């Protein structure tokens, strides 16, 4: 039933470049199929860099940039890429974008680059980026691929920002380095800055996302 409804919607959407389908893609990536909260992909970096909100935001921006860039290029090249060479091509394209971002950080945001350490470079191995290139960009036109990259990057960035926000707030009583919870009545909970805090925060966020989204249609029966 739900499937039929969706099908009907898809066919009656305007056939514009990014009309209804673009919106659907955006919603799918950022919400209904959120890479972190629903698919639980790429959590390694999400756990490692979220001890401060600033780090989380930069990491989210990095993923949006890489996802959009690699999706666009993979989609543009989708008709000329030999099928059995496609994964190597995807990795090469992703790696190029990641290193571009890393170089940029090193040149202009040195402190941030030092704090993120190897995790920027490790975006190359982030399943979200490769997954979107393989599952979406290879089959879809460039504009839609950009939207999909943006949606998934945003989905990742938003979840990261939520985790980073709560960890920094509870762990050090600060937001973006500004004291908001006075030390007089709030004792920072060190646990939230350490690795276990990341697991708690991520688990709670995943729980809330799934609760808001409701159960899968098949599970309802």
């Amino acid at each position, binding site marked *: 039933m739900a499937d039929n409804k969706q099908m009907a919607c898809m066919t009656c959407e305007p056939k514009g470049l990014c009309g209804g389908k673009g919106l659907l893609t955006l919603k799918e990536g950022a919400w209904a199929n959120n890479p972190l909260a629903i698919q639980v992909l790429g959590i390694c970096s999400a756990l490692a860099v979220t001890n401060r909100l600033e780090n989380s935001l930069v990491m989210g921006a990095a993923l949006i940039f890489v996802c959009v860039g690699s999706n666009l290029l993979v989609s543009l*090249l989708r008709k*000329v*890429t*030999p099928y*059995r*060479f496609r994964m*190597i*091509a995807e990795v*090469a*394209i992703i*790696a*190029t974008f990641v*290193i*571009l971002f890393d*170089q*940029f950080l*090193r*040149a*202009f945001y*040195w402190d941030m680059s030092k704090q993120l350490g190897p995790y920027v470079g490790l975006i190359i191995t982030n399943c979200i980026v490769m997954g979107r290139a393989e599952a979406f960009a290879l089959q879809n036109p460039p504009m839609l691929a950009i939207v999909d990259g943006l949606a998934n990057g945003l989905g990742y960035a938003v979840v990261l920002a939520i985790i980073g926000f709560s960890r920094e707030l509870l762990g050090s009583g600060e937001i973006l380095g500004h004291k908001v919870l006075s030390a007089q009545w709030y004792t920072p909970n060190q646990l939230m800055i350490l690795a276990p805090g990341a697991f708690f925060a991520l688990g709670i966020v995943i729980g809330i996302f799934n609760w808001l989204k409701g159960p899968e249609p098949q599970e309802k029966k």
Partner: protein
Amino acid sequence: MKNNVYTLFYAGVLGTVCSLLLTAAASFTKPYQQANAKAEKNRNILGVLKVPYQPGASSQELVKIFEDNVRQEKLGELDIYRYVPPQDSGADETAAVSFEGPGLWGPVKGFLALGKDMRTIRGITFYEQEETPGLGGEIAADWFREQFVGKSIVDAAGNPGIIISSSEGEAPNKVDAISGATMTCDKVQAMLNEAIKSIVQEKQ
């Protein structure tokens, strides 16, 4: 056969385009990155020499503070960075010597700050290390580094060398090792002693 040729051609073109992009980016950002690396080194030297500076200082400011306060000298083969504080500040003259060597996982680099006598340790810093976080990585932690302050680089009999060991007993040239990080501690001890040997040789 034709397929293979096409794949190879495609790989060649893609590889060339990607590497050209990266080369362009690398050469464009190189001056900025070098300035950052230099400021980072200066920040470490300033820190170990205890030169006062604003924590949020930019790269350019750091380079300036460094040039105003620190003199680079040669002591035999060694490069030393000497800080002569203003008379009224009450701080003592300090000299920093760089040391480096292999750690457990990668190179370890740092600076050792000595007092005017070139025997008493004023501070130590590790600005590059990839030791196991929580174990060997603790060499960069404050508690480990602060142990060195006030220690001597020669033993009671005047022989050069510092000991990083968990064994009992106090000595003017001994600091506590990190439990669980024997390999890292041994390697750090070896690289420090190499530097110390040349300092003592040059400054008898």
